[in-house]
């Protein structure tokens, strides 16, 4: 049994959107600032913010990222304290298309149906539904034959706080 999803349905009308404005300064430092907008804010209105910010900044605004956010309140009660509890323990799935582009997909805190507790390797067939959903979304235009190539389990290498004795 997996954890419980609380993210709203992605249906084209997000509860809010997030705009991230990324600047580079003359010393090559890069910084992004973010603003949250209501769903009705138009692209032109967000673009105007970028224009106004650039007019008052010595740095160069070189990237604006606008995301539709389908968010809810995070609650650990919706997650399970099972074998692979950490979101940093994950199964990494490598996808490639016919032009040899590649992308990694991470499945965080995998269930034991995907990553058994007595094995170092994930069960490939448990990934089929995920792979089909991903490839159906990615196969657009000329990059139209994505395949899952491999999957591997990687664990967090965590250093916890030391105790002095």
């Amino acid at each position, binding site marked *: 049994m997996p954890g419980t999803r609380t993210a709203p349905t992605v249906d084209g009308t997000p509860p809010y959107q997030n705009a991230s404005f990324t600047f580079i300064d003359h010393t090559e430092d890069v910084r992004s600032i973010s603003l949250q907008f209501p769903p009705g804010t138009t692209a032109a209105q967000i673009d105007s913010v970028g224009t106004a910010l650039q007019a008052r900044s010595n740095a160069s605004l070189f990237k604006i990222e606008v995301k539709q956010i389908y968010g809810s309140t995070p609650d650990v009660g919706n997650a399970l304290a099972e074998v692979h509890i950490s979101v940093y323990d994950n199964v990494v799935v490598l996808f490639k*298309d*016919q*032009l040899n582009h590649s992308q990694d997909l991470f499945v965080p805190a995998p269930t034991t149906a995907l990553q058994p507790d007595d094995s170092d390797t994930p069960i490939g*067939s448990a990934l*089929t*539904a995920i792979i*089909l*959903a991903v*490839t*159906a979304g990615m*196969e657009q235009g*000329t990059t*139209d*034959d994505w*395949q*899952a190539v491999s999957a591997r389990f990687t664990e967090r290498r965590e250093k916890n706080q030391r105790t002095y004795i």
Partner: protein
Amino acid sequence: MAASLWSSQKEGARALVRDMLASGQEMSVEDVVNALKMTGVTAKNALKAIYAAQQSENITLNGDYDTGSLRRGGV
């Protein structure tokens, strides 16, 4: 840039899944995949065709893609 072989097969494979399942009929995923493989589609792409048919042809999956079955017209 030339389209992939799968791109040229995709629509036909999806239509074949639709045509294999008359209304109310049920077939195992394995049988549908094998039928598609006979047309030159790989096993992985056969599953993609099944997924596409699920999205657009009122075909539902009972169980999982390993051992489950497909039915047209609801569970």
